[in-house]
Structures are given as C-alpha cells and as structure tokens.
C-alpha cells in the first residue's frame, strides 16, 4: 500500500516538473494567461499582439500541449487551442483557496461574537 502511494507521488512529482518546466518561459506563461479565459483560441489570435511568428507560437503551444496544459481541436482549416487547468490547479490547490477564505471569514466571526 505504502509503496503504491509512493509510486503515485513520484509520478505526480514528475508531472509537476513537466508543468513547471513548460511554464518556465515568458512566452508560454503569457500564452497560458491568454488561454485561461476558458475559450478556444486560434493561432492567429494568439499571435496577435506579440512579436513572434505563427511558427514560434505553434512551437510553444506544442510544449504546453505536451505538458497537458492545452489541447487542440480542429475547426475547418484552423486548429483551436484550449486551456486545461487540471495540471496546474489540482484539487489540493483549490481546497487551499477555499480554506483561506474560511480562515478570513472565521476571524470576522470571532471579532463579531467576542465584541
């Protein structure tokens, strides 16, 4: 049982390293920010406003795709890229976020009842 958990933890670590490596680049980080609105984007749209070529953007998107952070679908002659938050935002991170909000709310409750 213990060994199984460890194996899983190691795999998770490796996945994470992959994700972090993919994010360790300014262009890709900027792409993730653009894509994180949850809508599918075409390469031309992602290229707009950058000094990079379509080819360069495509290359960066492939790295993100390799880390599981984006997936692409074809629509006619165009590829549309969509963000997949799962590798970055795991369940734990989400719970930590909600947990932090409770901490703040409970401090306000404490102040109210001990007033």
């Amino acid at each position, binding site marked *: 049982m213990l060994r199984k958990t460890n194996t899983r933890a190691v795999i998770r670590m490796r996945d*994470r*390293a992959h994700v*972090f490596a993919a*994010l*360790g680049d300014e262009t890709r980080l900027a792409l993730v920010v653009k894509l*994180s*609105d*949850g809508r599918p984007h075409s390469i031309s749209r992602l290229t707009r406003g950058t000094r990079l070529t379509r080819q360069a953007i495509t290359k960066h998107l492939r790295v993100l795709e390799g880390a599981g952070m984006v997936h692409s679908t074809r629509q006619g002659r165009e590829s549309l890229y969509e*963000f*997949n*938050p*799962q590798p*970055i*935002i795991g*369940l*734990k*991170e*989400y*719970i*930590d*976020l*909600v*947990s*932090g*909000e*409770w*901490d703040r*709310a*409970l401090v*306000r*409750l*404490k*102040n*109210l*009842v*001990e007033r």
Partner: protein
Amino acid sequence: MDDRIEKRIELKAPVSRVWRAITDYREFGEWFRVKLDGPFVAGTASTGHITYPGYEHLKWEAVVQKMEPERLFSFTWHPYAVDPKMDYSREASTLVEFRLEKTATGTLLVLTESGFDKIPAERRLEAFRRNDGGWTAQMKNIENHVTNYVAKN
C-alpha cells in the same frame, strides 16, 4: 487525498451567542459578507448577494440542510460560484457544517466543508482566475519547485 476542510476555532462567547451569529441571517451576512434575502430555514434555499468588495454582483445561493439549535447548522452550496452568467445548480455542491461545543471558556466551533472531489476542474480554474491569492500561491509553488529542482540538480 484529503478532500475536506476542517477548522477548529475557540470563541470566547457562549454557545447561544455563537449560534445566533451563524444562524441569524443578518448576523451571518455581517461576517460572511453576504446580504441575505431572508432567514435560514432548514430544507429551503437561501438567496442573496455577496457584499464582499468587488464581488457585489455575485449571487449567494445555498440550501439549508440542518438547524439543530446550538449544536449543528449546515448548508450545501457552490463555493466560488463566481460567474454570474453561469448556472451552477446542476453541478455538485459542497456541504458546509458548523458544529458547536461548550467549553470552559466559551465555545468550540468546528467547521467542515466536504465534497470537493466532485467540483469540475474548470470551476477550480474559474475560482483561481478571480482570486489573486490563488494565483499568488500558485506562483509561489512554482518558484519553490524550481528552486528545489535547481538545488537538487
């Protein structure tokens, strides 16, 4: 993985006072930062809107589950249901429970929130997008990870 939140907090106030603060809809609204339309009634929906600065356009929707005086108050809701255009009613909700216990100095409040494993990944992202703290924490995680990685290699 642990899919629940548990908080224990000691309050220097009698159980009756704490019970009122968590179940009177006006008092609840004051510390939770929500303006509720009416009192909490077990088995019914509670509606209102968030008063947290910057989030005033957001609705509050919960279903009160249990109200056992001075012992247990619980409701189900959708944490971080932050997109006003989205209908969250069909999505899995989490269960929030407040349990009160009398202590020598006042009240022990045990808060639990459970059921996070059913929340879709897109919803988690949404919560992070709207919450600066979430992203700051993420960036910190990345930074720590990268630092450790560099140190080890």
